[in-house]
Each structure stands twice: as structure tokens, then as C-alpha cells.
């Protein structure tokens, strides 16, 4: 790029053929430093005080002091219990430590580690390093349900409900957390039965409870996942410290086809001093009567460019239906069935066909299914979020009418550097825009977060082609086009944000953006160091552009203490080399 510093703009200097420095002066940056695996004493660290000198030298890339959260998580003992609990019963599971990011729009700070219950009785079953930032962290422990059987005594099912607490990272913390202590929990029991009263068909259902720790918290799992017995009955333990309203959810066990029952807003009062062993009994959850599932075939077809219909392979198809309650019930109960399959590949028998077990309709009335179709991200065929498929009895006619998909929009363009050179061999990733996610409801956002989106690699002239849905989850789609050019291509990582596909002047089915220039790049470099000032090899640096206060307030409440709704933009992801040096290629718009 340069022979001497005279070839560089502004304050940049030329070194080894690269213009370093002349950093952008109107952009606010932050970084996340991730330690290499062989340095467990270092903690993932957020940096908000990094600076870039005029010559491109970065200062501030340093891991700070850390604290260690470590200890044992064990099964609590009942009053007269001597065996199978306490220090002799470490519980396997996942420890999750979280807090909001320390910079606007930053990703949530999150570390997780699995406990190691196989250690000696006095050793720690987990240890995690955190920055000594005096911040408050939420720590949650979720037991590994499949491993709890090893702790069972006398055939009793062991329950270890999720455990949550907060800590302050002001110094090393050695903990012993006893979970599942009877005095910390209250019991909910109930049964899943048929409308005729015989519960034996519902053995093996998986039942759990959802609750909240406070009104500000989202619903979260409040109990272990327990299995119904031969009578279809269950007993759940939930924390007394949670709010008293719970949702009880009964789902079919693995490999079983049954509806899911959800009882919402069940009030479970705490045991009192005069009723310490109070068990909350819920009235039976009645499973509707329904014929056995039948295998149906649903052909999935898409319109080719020439107009013919072709099989669509590799598409995920989700079927959902609801059942009426067998008898009126004042409680808030939903009975639903959902299943998901992938359409057959082109080389298989019945290409493009979905083979699925569904609850059939009756002789008088079809059963309606809401259907979502999600073709592979590189497919030309459009997603469907709200189709309705009517299913009859299936006798003699298990093949349903085909579901025909429209075509996605062929979106093209060509990326260039700021000075007009084609950006060759540059990965492009498309994602739903942050503004679209903000428009979506909670359930729509969950659907969006489940989706895969296309990627492409630019060609010899910087050109690209991606197939995009015009609408997502019922909303007019807007996308971020994210580019990660080669490091020394004179172009930084960049995102064209909130791109709309609405263009009345474009031919139907296609949209060309023409030339799309990226801003110039500014090159910076710096050494990653530990607290002792020694360089750290193999540290990962995630570099972010922080949204402005004005941008945050434009989508949220002005002056609000809530985290910014706009995400900080990831500008790059680099690893420190053998000398501990990392290079940052930043946009200088």
C-alpha cells in the first residue's frame, strides 16, 4: 500500500508496506479480550478505555485483575438424611455467570462452566475467573438432569431445581452451595390423565415448572424436569424464594408423540409454620381424546426461474395445532402439538417430500395445522411463516396437497473499496437488521433468532448474489449486509445496515444495488498484555463500535437506565500472534 509515509493520508505512517494510524476520530470503540485456553487465571475482560495514537499504536489492551469464583455444589440434606446428600453428593451441571455489558449495546457478559463432580470430597467442583470489577453478577446453576440418577437413593427421583444467586466481584469467593434442600423448596403434585380418568397412557411425560425470581425477571425454569409415573402423576419441587405463580408444562418424553399441556399462572403458596409439609395439589390435567397419529406425506414444491414446479429439499417444516379441552376448565390451560421435520433430499426417494406423523382429523372435521417452512439459507425458495394445512383422517389418502413456495428475491450488487477497487473473495453475511428485531414481538423475535440467513463470497468484480425473503415473521424484511474483507485489502469490516428490499423500479423477483463502496480502512496494532505486563499469545480481541447516546435514545426511552436496545457493531475479531501483537482494521468513514 505504501513505500513511505508520504503515501499515507493524515497522520498515518508507513511501515512494512502498510499505512498505520490516522484513526477515526468520531467513533467510540470498545473491545472484549478473551484469554487463550491455556491461561485460565485470566478472565474475559471488557475494555472501554482503549485508545489509538496517530501512528496506529493501540494502548489499553490489557487483562485486568481477576477474582476466582470457586467451590462445590452439592445436594442438600433433609433433616434426618444421612446418605446420598451433602459433601458426598456433588451435583453435575452448568454454572452460568452473567451481567449486562459494561458498554452501550455490548453483548451480555456471560461465562459458563460445567461442574466436575468426580473430584475428591474437599476439592472444588468448579472454578471460574471473573474480572475484579466490583460488578454484580447473576449466577445460575442448572443440574444435568441425565446425571442426577446417579445420586438417587432407593429409587427416589432426585430433584435439583435450578439455583440462582447474585455475587459481587470484589474478591475471591469460595462457596458451597447446597441445592434441593427441602426447607428451600415447596412441592407441586398432579397427574396427567385422559378424559376418561385412566392415567396409565401418560407414563414417561416430562414435566417442569416455570417461574420468576422477581417481577423484573423473565420466566425461567423453576424445577427439575421430572417424569410422570405409571399413573401419569408427578411431583415437582420449586424454590420458595421465587414468586408464587408458576406455569406447569407437561411434554411427551423423547421418541413419543403426544400433545403438550401447559397450565399457566398456578398460584402455589409457601408452606407456613403450622403447615411445613404443605404440598400443593393441582387438579388433573386432562389430555384430550384423539386418534393415534398417522404418517402423512406433504410434497414441498417451489417455482423455478422458468416457472416449473420443482421439489424443495432440506427445508425445515414445523407443524403446530391446538386441541380443545375435553371438559370446560376455569384454569388457563393450553393443549398443543408441535413437530418438526426436514424435507427429503434430491437424491432420496420422494425428493422434496415431508414425511411426518400428525394427529389426523375426524370423518366430519379436518384438523388444521399452522405450518412454517424454512428452506435452507442458500435456497431460492421463500420461507413461509403462516401457512394452514388441513389434515383429514389419512385413511387411504395419506398424501396431502402440495405446499408451493414462492421465490425469494435475488439480491445482487458489487462491493468496492473506498477508491473504487473491486472487493474480491470477501465473505458477505446477511442478518435481520437490529431495527427489524426491535419491531418484532417477543415471540416473533424468538422465531427470528432461530433462523439461518445466507452468506456469499464476492467474485472477481466484487459481485454477490443472495436470495432473501421479502418478509420475515410477517414483517417487511430489513437486513444488515455484513462484510469481512481480507485484512490487507484496504477495506475494513463493514455493515450496510437496515437494507430494505422494497424498490418499485426493480423487476419483480430481483433487486440490484449496483456499486456499494465501503469506507476507507484505518490500520492499528497493539500488544495484548496480562496484569504483569507480559504479552499474551493467542488472546482473542473482539472489537466493537459503540452506538451513540443519541442513537440509543432514538429507539428507547431518553435518559433511561436500561441497556441500549441497539447492539454495538462487531468491527473485527483478531487473535494476538506469537509476539502478542494484534492488528485491528477499522472503518474510517
Amino acid at each position, binding site marked *: 500500500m505504501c513505500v513511505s509515509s508520504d503515501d499515507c493520508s493524515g497522520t498515518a505512517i508507513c511501515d*512494512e508496506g502498510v499505512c498505520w494510524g490516522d484513526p477515526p476520530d468520531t467513533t467510540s470503540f470498545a473491545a472484549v479480550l478473551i484469554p487463550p485456553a491455556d491461561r485460565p487465571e485470566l478472565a474475559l475482560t471488557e475494555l472501554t478505555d482503549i485508545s489509538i495514537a496517530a501512528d496506529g499504536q493501540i494502548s489499553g489492551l490489557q487483562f485486568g485483575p481477576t477474582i476466582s469464583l470457586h467451590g462445590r455444589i452439592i445436594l442438600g440434606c433433609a433433616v434426618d438424611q444421612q446418605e446420598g446428600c451433602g459433601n458426598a453428593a456433588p451435583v453435575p451441571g452448568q454454572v452460568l455467570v452473567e451481567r449486562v455489558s459494561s458498554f452501550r449495546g455490548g453483548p451480555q457478559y456471560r461465562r459458563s462452566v460445567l461442574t466436575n463432580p468426580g473430584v475428591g470430597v474437599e476439592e472444588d467442583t468448579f472454578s471460574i475467573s471473573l474480572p475484579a470489577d466490583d460488578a454484580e453478577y447473576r449466577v445460575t446453576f442448572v443440574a444435568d438432569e441425565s446425571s442426577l440418577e446417579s445420586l438417587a437413593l432407593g429409587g427416589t427421583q432426585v430433584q435439583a431445581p435450578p439455583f440462582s444467586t447474585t455475587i459481587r466481584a470484589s474478591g475471591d469467593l469460595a462457596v458451597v452451595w447446597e441445592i434441593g434442600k427441602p426447607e428451600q423448596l415447596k412441592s407441586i403434585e398432579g397427574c396427567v390423565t385422559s378424559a376418561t380418568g385412566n392415567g396409565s397412557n401418560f407414563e414417561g411425560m416430562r414435566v417442569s415448572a416455570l417461574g420468576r425470581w422477581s417481577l423484573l425477571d423473565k420466566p425461567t425454569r423453576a424445577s427439575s424436569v421430572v417424569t410422570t409415573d405409571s399413573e401419569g402423576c408427578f411431583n415437582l419441587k420449586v424454590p420458595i424464594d421465587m414468586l408464587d405463580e408458576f406455569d406447569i*408444562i407437561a411434554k411427551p418424553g423423547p421418541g413419543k408423540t403426544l400433545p403438550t399441556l401447559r397450565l399457566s399462572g398456578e398460584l402455589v403458596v409457601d408452606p407456613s409454620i403450622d403447615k411445613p409439609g404443605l404440598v400443593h395439589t393441582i387438579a388433573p390435567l386432562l389430555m384430550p381424546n384423539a386418534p393415534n397419529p398417522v404418517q402423512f406425506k406433504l410434497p414441498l414444491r417451489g417455482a423455478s426461474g422458468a416457472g416449473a414446479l420443482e421439489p424443495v429439499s*432440506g427445508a425445515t417444516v414445523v407443524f403446530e395445532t391446538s386441541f380443545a379441552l375435553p371438559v370446560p376448565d376455569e384454569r388457563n390451560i393450553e393443549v398443543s402439538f408441535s413437530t418438526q421435520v426436514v424435507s427429503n*433430499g434430491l437424491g432420496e426417494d420422494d425428493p422434496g417430500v415431508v414425511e411426518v406423523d400428525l394427529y389426523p382429523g375426524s370423518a366430519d372435521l379436518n384438523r388444521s395445522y399452522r405450518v412454517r417452512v424454512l428452506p435452507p439459507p442458500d435456497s431460492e425458495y421463500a420461507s413461509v411463516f403462516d401457512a394452514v394445512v388441513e389434515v383429514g383422517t389419512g385413511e387411504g389418502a395419506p398424501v396431502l396437497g402440495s405446499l408451493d413456495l414462492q421465490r425469494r428475491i435475488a439480491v445482487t450488487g458489487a462491493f468496492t473499496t473506498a477508491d473504487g477497487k473491486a472487493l474480491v473473495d470477501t465473505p458477505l453475511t446477511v442478518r435481520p437488521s437490529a431495527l427489524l428485531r426491535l419491531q418484532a414481538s417477543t415471540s416473533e423475535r424468538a422465531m427470528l433468532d432461530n433462523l439461518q440467513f445466507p452468506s456469499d463470497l464476492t467474485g472477481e468484480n466484487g459481485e454477490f448474489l443472495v436470495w432473501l425473503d421479502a418478509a420475515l415473521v410477517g414483517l417487511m424484511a430489513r437486513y444488515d449486509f455484513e462484510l469481512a474483507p481480507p485484512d490487507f485489502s484496504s477495506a475494513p469490516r463493514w455493515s450496510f445496515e437496515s437494507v430494505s428490499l422494497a424498490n418499485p423500479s426493480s423487476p419483480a423477483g430481483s433487486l440490484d444495488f449496483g456499486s456499494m463502496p465501503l469506507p476507507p480502512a484505518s490500520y492499528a496494532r497493539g500488544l495484548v498484555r496480562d496484569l504483569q505486563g507480559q504479552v499474551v499469545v493467542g488472546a482473542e480481541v473482539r472489537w466493537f463500535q459503540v452506538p451513540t447516546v443519541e442513537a440509543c435514545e432514538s429507539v428507547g426511552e431518553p435518559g433511561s437506565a436500561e441497556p441500549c436496545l441497539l447492539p454495538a457493531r462487531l468491527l473485527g*475479531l483478531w487473535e494476538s500472534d506469537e509476539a502478542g501483537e494484534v492488528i485491528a482494521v477499522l472503518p474510517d468513514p
Partner: protein
Amino acid sequence: MLAKRAMLLIGALLVCFLVVGSACIFPPELEPGTSDAGPSATPVILSAGPAPDFLFPGPIVLDRQDDRTLSLTVQDNDVDDVIRVRLYIDYGRPNPEPAYAECQAASTGELTRVVACQVNSLCNPIGATDVGDHVLEAMVADREFLSDSDPAATGQSLFRALRDKTRAGYSFRDWIMRCNAPVEI
């Protein structure tokens, strides 16, 4: 910068070769027998992070719609290659299924680079009551992945077809993976 780094690396390789032989640049934990023998150098995944969340061999535990970013450190002696990665869940156990994530990284001029992958859709094929172990497999390649409808994909493994297969370099690494139960909203 690039020239200096390349000279340093060539020097290191020469020393390494003279001291311990030609295999010294390959980490011992690579899976044998899973990489291609084509003329292109084979890209290999050296490590995954952030640690400890995503370390090999796992188990790694994901939430539904998990918003974390998985970093894969990949080595490819063809430094100009674009690296592509696809992530599969229980591929061939029993049936081949499409990838549930795809990610790429352009050349950095270095032998190793970091590929960033989103993990939000990896739990999609896992049943809501299934909190057991599954196999998450990363396939890393130096050629473009093809759609199954592409004629050049004929004869290749389902959902894993590569352009210019006879010259492509590719390899695999696996984790044990679990998905937390969904939080029903």
C-alpha cells in the same frame, strides 16, 4: 508486516523441520483419517473458544437461540484461501441433515485465522425435552459449499458437496453438545 511475518514463519518452520522433522507444525490432537488427500493444503481447526464454554471435546451447553459467537482458530497453509465452515448436528446419526450454521473468513495473510460462527440455530433440530448429548460437527473447507441442486454436487455427500471436490481440502472436528430446555415465553 506480511513479508516480515512470512519470513519469521518460514524461519521457524525450517528450524522445526531440522529439529523434529516435517510433522512438527501439526497439533497432536487432530483427528486422523478425516482430511482430504487432494493437492490443496488441508485447513484444520486448531481450537475453539471462548474457553471454557466451547473447548473441545465438550460437552458444550447451548441455550435455544443462543446469542453467543463461537470462534474457531483455523490453520491453512494456503494463506490466500477463503475458509468456510459448516456446523452439523448428529449428521448421519442416522440420517444426513443440512447444516445449522455456516460461516466464512477471508484471507489474513497468516497461516491461522479466526472464523466467527453464530450458534443461534444449533438447537433447532433438538427436541424440546431432549437435554441429552449430541454430536456437533464442524466441517472446514477451502472451497465453496454447493447447494444439493447444483449438478456439480452429484455423487457427493448430502449437504456437504464442495466445488472442485478433487482439489478441495477439508477436515472435521467434533464436540459433544447439549441444549438447555427452552424457556417457554
